[in-house]
């Protein structure tokens, strides 16, 4: 890893993004230090998901700069560093695929060369930390929303991430599942993980600082 721990986990400077030729985000400035957590709130269409896609590298900034874990988006260093960025987005997943929870967690290691023994250990540890080891042989598509979130987080933990990005993690969860998810994310953050979660409802998530997006522009962060 070429990123320096002294650099922030995320740093956006006058970053903007376009979709279908229309500006949908920015310009925004945002800095998230390592070990911090941030909730990005805002109504539908405010640019939350676009911002997350930008941070994952799935879309490019039309202007400005984006640095993730001390690397510039698109650079050779970033291509290596992005394996340390966990990304949870259930909306992009094929939920009809016959794939077990263990297989989903193992996807976190699909982009890396990991010896089989170490692979098994990391998967077991990740599923244990996410509280879903007992689900390992269940089909992902047959799990509840909360169980799927835990498996997706286990997939990210298998990557041994430095940064966790979540898109609407509490959407479609019942109140008890939301509470359990909030506790899990709180524990991961307490363990030192940097977390940025995008959500249109922040009440069920831990009391982290909240930054609001409105029409693609960022409003100042406040305590949640």
């Amino acid at each position, binding site marked *: 890893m070429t990123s320096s721990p002294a650099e922030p986990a995320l740093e956006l400077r006058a970053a903007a993004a376009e979709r*279908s*030729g229309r500006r949908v985000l920015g310009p925004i400035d945002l800095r998230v230090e390592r070990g911090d957590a941030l909730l990005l709130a805002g109504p539908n269409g405010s640019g939350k998901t676009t911002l997350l*896609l930008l941070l*994952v*590298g*799935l879309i490019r900034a039309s202007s400005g700069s984006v640095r993730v874990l001390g690397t510039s988006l698109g650079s050779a260093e970033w*291509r*290596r560093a*992005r*394996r340390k*960025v*966990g*990304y949870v*987005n259930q909306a*992009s*997943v*094929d939920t*009809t*695929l*016959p*794939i*077990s929870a263990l*297989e*989903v967690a*193992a*996807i*976190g*290691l*699909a*982009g*890396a060369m990991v010896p089989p023994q170490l692979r098994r250990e990391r998967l077991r540890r990740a599923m244990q930390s996410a509280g879903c080891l007992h689900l390992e042989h269940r*089909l992902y*598509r*047959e799990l509840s929303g909360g169980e799927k979130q835990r498996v997706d987080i286990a*997939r990210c933990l298998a*990557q041994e991430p430095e940064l966790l990005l979540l898109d609407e993690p509490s959407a479609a969860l019942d109140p008890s599942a939301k509470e359990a998810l909030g506790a899990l994310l709180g524990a991961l953050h307490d363990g030192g993980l940097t977390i940025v979660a995008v959500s249109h409802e922040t009440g069920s998530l831990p009391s982290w600082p909240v930054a609001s997006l409105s029409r693609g522009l960022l409003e100042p962060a406040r305590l949640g």
Partner: protein
Amino acid sequence: MLEALQYAPIARALVVLLVAGAVFPLTGVFVLRLNLVTLRFTLMHGTMLAAAVALALGMDQIILAAGLNIALVALISLFGRKGEQSGFGTGTLTTFLMVTTIGAAFVVIYRFNVPAKDTLSILWGSLFALTPRDAYVTAGFAAATLIFFLASYRKLKALLFSHDVAFSVGIDATALHRALLALVGLTVALAVRLVGALLLDALLLLPAIVAGFHARSTRQLFLISALVGVLSALVGFFLSLGLDIPASSAVTMTAALLLGIGFLTKRRGT
């Protein structure tokens, strides 16, 4: 019936059909799961255009079809996404090419007076007219496909789950997707030569659909697809010999029957 296998073209047809039945459905899983069915039509029409040109000019059908399909995939990959903003994106471009290639194929057939019987061979395939070279090409392609699958299995599984997630764990998901498109193009080019344009789905898609009814893991998805493909090929081949009906039709009807059985016996919730 077995004595017919003493004849080299018939034995060759069986071997090629079994190899194709085992390997082509693996590619079919991706055609179904990654929503490439429209692309598959375009590639099928591209193969028909190549076959028409090959018949008209006395050229090699497989090489022409493979080349044209790779060109079509390259066009769609390179210009599809760029065209999204102008309203001429991947879907529109794929449909445009699907229509123009089949139109061009019939122009070639008409202008070069390709005999009706030869034209029908594009639709029905020419299993018993396969040359030893066709058999080697099929075997080599099947081996290459298997190597690609085994070498990229974990990455392919991630891509099936989610393109975005695959990208986020460090996989070059776009390149892998393009490689799969090329594989589909080559598979269709070969399958048309074997069972014809109208019946290639018997080897490509039907086994993958049956597998979707019963699989409890991605490994089972691929294994059941291959198993149904081989069974369709084997039973269809001997039905063809026993009932004196075209092999491609017999294979298709067998695959369709297996799909019916698969549907009736499928697990709840699949």
